[in-house]
């Protein structure tokens, strides 16, 4: 067993700290090649991860990098640095701890490369950059340990796939490297263990007592539709005033903004409340984080940007506004409250509308029954591998066979074939086109048995493009004539604004004035109704676990567990139409606002419902029904167009759906968006960098053109294959459509109504409407053009 340096043990003793059993276990397992610790929040998980490091380094360690700590959040690295400093300085250990993220200054980063600290805290993106330098082998020469925090969160995204490849790289540089993964409760620990390393010891800490969780009771019932939970503000303020510190989670940034604005208007008691989400400027987020740590805030309205294990002080209540979508995430969020080990966390769910009341009830039932949702993630994506190959070439020449062997030690790529690897290498080196046009200008050349960059100067460009997070292009928002940015909005949103439009940012209503030098200039306009900002938060599909439970709840004769208003609403739906059930697929058709509408209650989760929207509108287009667009939620798809659907059965023929998937997939907006992400990650197109966009008179042309070109001239190209794989498992989620149709068989029931039904109403308020480009839109465009010309007196 590894023991702590006496100075540290003594310091713990003077503080009256004793190690938790799982912290002692971590010391006992210090020599294992890989250890996964699963522990609830507040269990001293992070310290447990660092104990073996502190024990090995001792009071006076020699210089050199010993431990690398990787976390998904920049804020987390800063937080951990502060937390580690306390015992290290308290015990007088001469251990240097530094963080390195995108926010670290250039000089600091240079110095860290020349003289690395003992413990370096970083993110997967910064690590990718470090590993791409020629001196990576020197920087990581003495590396003994790597600690991956919030592994459960990383493992769900491409950032985790990238990290898995980096761990393999680090292991090659240091065969004796030991890995530690820290995770919240997950449904499948062995799968996560394999993600971390080929041979991993699993340690599960005591999960602690069950959380104290319930639905918030409000005087006013939730609205029929919409999101945001504004109706609950008085009740939420009341809860905030009764607790020390409350975290108020929202699912999207837009809802977070609107809620904060309204909360502030209602906050007559002047409770100090802050807002925190990913679209706010760093300065603003840091201010809130500092105030939070100092205990100066009573509540923070936030999104997933506060989801992960940052120690935000003494949080004693978590409020989730809006349906949680996923039980596992809910449980992890609840864990944010009450950081004292072995004390129950307290949480309240606030459904944003009556439908969400049902989903919240389903989630409560699931939490109480200790069931967690989780769908297996499938093999590692190849666009991430392509980027890794480019990054590896930046660091120096590599041997393809050796690199292939290394890549397959990474969990997500364990089943990658040599052929698949070679296809990725060919793409990276030559473009992988059927037309071999780039013999002279290959990116990678093969000489003397190794692959290397043809033009070493290309490394700088490749490094700028590293990372797997694809942001939509964001523009800073500033008050006219004032320096400090208020936050950022998506370029698409900015493009949709005309001077005079108002929107919400940082909790205030602002008026759009002009777009200048990639900055949105605004002025303050208190008291005006905002035009809602369409920040798109991360969209998670409601899990199968939850949708199944919701359908079960619908089958009850009465709903004694649900609030009376919601029970009444469901009864009303049953009266005017029908409630969806597991044995059939309910469709409703009705006219509304001059358009025909079709609602498909598939309960297949947002992504599959979106795919259904794509497939169905395509069919409707060929039937001449002139569909104009659709919007999908986790439980239904709403399609609008110029003509009504009367015979739905042919639309849902599985064989036709599957046969047509290939053609349907090709031309639609979802595929183009997937292609764009894949093209950026794999290095085909560059991220738009603000500097470059400034100098370029014209913005880069759209990736849609590349997509169309490849489809036309090179339909078997690797990137189209990757896009298809990505779309099928992520955004397309066709398997859930197949499950749905298998479940309902021939029972597809269309009900024709003369107006919107209670269950359909919320769909009209959903963001993320997807236009269908077809005859209907041509008809509309011609009408609009005519109207504009007439208005201008030109026709």
């Amino acid at each position, binding site marked *: 067993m590894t023991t702590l340096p006496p100075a540290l043990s003594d310091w713990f003793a003077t503080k009256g700290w004793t190690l938790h059993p799982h912290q002692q276990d971590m010391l006992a397992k210090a020599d294992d090649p890989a250890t996964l610790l699963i522990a609830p929040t507040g269990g001293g998980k992070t310290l447990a991860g660092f104990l073996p490091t502190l024990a090995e380094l001792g009071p006076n360690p020699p210089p050199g990098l010993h431990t690398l700590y990787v976390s998904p959040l920049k804020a987390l690295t800063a937080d951990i640095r502060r937390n580690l400093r306390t015992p290290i300085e308290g015990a007088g250990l001469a251990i240097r701890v530094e963080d390195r993220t995108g926010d670290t200054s250039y000089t600091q980063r240079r110095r860290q490369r020349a003289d690395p600290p003992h413990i370096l805290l970083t993110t997967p993106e910064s690590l990718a950059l470090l590993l791409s330098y020629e001196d990576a082998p020197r920087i990581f020469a003495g590396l003994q340990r790597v600690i991956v925090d919030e592994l459960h969160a990383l493992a769900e995204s491409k950032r985790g796939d990238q990290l898995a490849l980096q761990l393999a790289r680090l292991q090659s540089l240091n065969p004796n490297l030991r890995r530690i993964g820290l995770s919240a409760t997950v449904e499948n620990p062995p799968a996560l263990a394999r993600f971390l390393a080929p041979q991993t010891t699993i340690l599960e800490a005591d999960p602690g007592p069950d959380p104290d969780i319930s639905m918030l009771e409000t005087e006013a019932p939730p609205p029929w539709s919409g999101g945001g939970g504004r109706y609950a503000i008085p009740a939420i303020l009341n809860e905030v005033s009764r607790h020390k510190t409350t975290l108020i989670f929202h699912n999207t940034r837009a809802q977070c903004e609107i809620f904060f604005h309204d909360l502030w208007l209602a906050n007559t008691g002047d409770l100090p409340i802050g807002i925190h989400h990913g679209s706010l400027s760093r300065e603003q987020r840091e201010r809130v984080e500092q105030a939070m740590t100092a205990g100066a805030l009573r509540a923070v309205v936030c999104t997933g940007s506060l989801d992960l294990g940052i120690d935000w002080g003494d949080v004693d209540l978590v409020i989730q506004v809006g349906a949680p979508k996923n039980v596992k995430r809910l449980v992890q969020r609840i864990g944010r409250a009450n950081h004292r080990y072995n004390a129950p966390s307290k949480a309240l769910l606030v459904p944003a509308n009556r439908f969400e009341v049902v989903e919240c009830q389903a989630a409560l039932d699931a939490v109480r029954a200790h069931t967690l949702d989780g769908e297996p993630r499938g093999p590692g994506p190849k666009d991430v591998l392509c980027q890794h190959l480019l990054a590896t070439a930046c660091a120096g020449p590599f041997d393809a066979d050796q690199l292939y062997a290394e890549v397959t030690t990474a969990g997500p790529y364990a089943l990658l074939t040599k052929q698949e690897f070679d296809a990725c290498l060919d793409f990276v080196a*030559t*473009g992988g*086109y059927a*037309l071999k*046009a*780039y013999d*002279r*200008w*290959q*990116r990678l050349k093969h000489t003397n048995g190794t692959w290397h960059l*043809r*033009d070493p*100067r*290309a490394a700088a*460009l490749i490094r700028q493009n590293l990372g797997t997070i694809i942001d939509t292009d964001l523009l800073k928002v500033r008050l006219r004539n004032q320096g400090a940015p208020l936050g950022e909005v998506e370029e698409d949103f900015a*493009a949709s604004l005309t001077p005079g439009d108002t929107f919400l940012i940082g909790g205030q209503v602002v008026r759009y004035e002009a777009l200048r030098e990639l900055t949105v200039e605004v002025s303050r306009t208190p008291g005006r109704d905002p035009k809602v900002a369409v920040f798109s938060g991360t969209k998670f599909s409601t899990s199968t676990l939850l949708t199944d439970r919701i359908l079960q709840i619908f089958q009850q004769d009465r709903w004694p567990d649900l609030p009376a208003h919601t029970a009444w609403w469901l009864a009303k739906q049953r009266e005017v139409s029908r409630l969806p059930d597991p044995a059939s697929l309910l469709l409703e058709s009705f006219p509304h606002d001059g358009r025909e509408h079709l609602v498909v209650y598939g309960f297949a989760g947002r992504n599959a419902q979106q795919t259904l929207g794509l497939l169905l509108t395509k069919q409707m287009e060929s039937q001449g029904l002139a569909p104009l667009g659709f919007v999908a939620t986790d439980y239904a798809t709403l399609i609008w167009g110029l003509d009504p659907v009367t015979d739905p059965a042919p639309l849902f023929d599985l064989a036709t759906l599957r046969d047509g998937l290939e053609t349907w997939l090709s031309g639609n907006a979802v595929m183009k968006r997937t292609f764009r992400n894949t093209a950026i990650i794999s*290095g*085909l*197109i*560059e991220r738009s960098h603000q500097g470059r966009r400034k100098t*370029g*008179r*014209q*913005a*880069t*042309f759209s990736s849609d*053109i*590349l997509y169309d*070109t*490849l489809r*036309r*001239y*090179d339909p078997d*190209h690797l990137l189209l294959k990757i896009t298809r794989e990505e779309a099928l498992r992520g955004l397309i989620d066709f398997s859930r459509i197949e499950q749905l149709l298998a479940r309902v068989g021939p029972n597809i029931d269309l009900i024709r109504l003369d107006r919107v039904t209670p269950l359909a109403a919320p769909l009209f308020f959903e963001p993320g409407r997807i*236009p269908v*480009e077809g005859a209907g*839109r*041509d008809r*509309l*465009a*011609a009408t*609009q*053009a005519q109207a*504009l*010309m007439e208005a*201008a007196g*030109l026709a």
Partner: protein
Amino acid sequence: MHHALFFHGETLHLLPSGALFWPARKTLAVSDLHLGKSERLARRGGTLLPPYETQATLEKLDRDLDHTGAETVICLGDSFDDLAAAEGIEEAARLWLIRLMAGKDWTWITGNHDPGPIEIGGSHRAELKLRPFTFRHIAEPQDRAEISGHYHPKASLAGQSKPCFLADAARLILPAYGLYTGGLRSHDTTLTTLMAKDALAILTGPRVLAIPMPR
């Protein structure tokens, strides 16, 4: 379907492809082909884009020539992404281009990307006067009856952004004809300053539609 524009006493057809056809003179004008763009990016150590844009652009030009029966062709500059791209053009594309040029009065106007003569036949000029019009690459604010390119204008209608022609009483600006060409929204001050208040944007696409220039 084209859009017919009456401009300085002449009828001009604005084609869905972004080309301009002047029936009275059997003249076709196209701008900003940017042939060889993917090759130039690769040569400079950048990314390897699908190397098909020259083929796609020539196919489009072939169709327009065939369809209009044009006898005179004016390329309004930036026909090649740079001079080396003009020299390095693949043999198949070069032969194709030569075939298209055969028997036609073909003028290459120099642009900022291809500021010198190109070894490919045709005549090379800084600008071309063909009464009543002046054809040049970049619009000159004081001139009239001018037809130019350079800006790659774009505009949106019904939520879709498309390359467009811009027209007012004094000038006509063509959209970029090449495939890998970005665009400048008509809102940009460069364009709103250049074009008169009553300017029209004529959007390319299967159906050519004219709208007041979005600004």
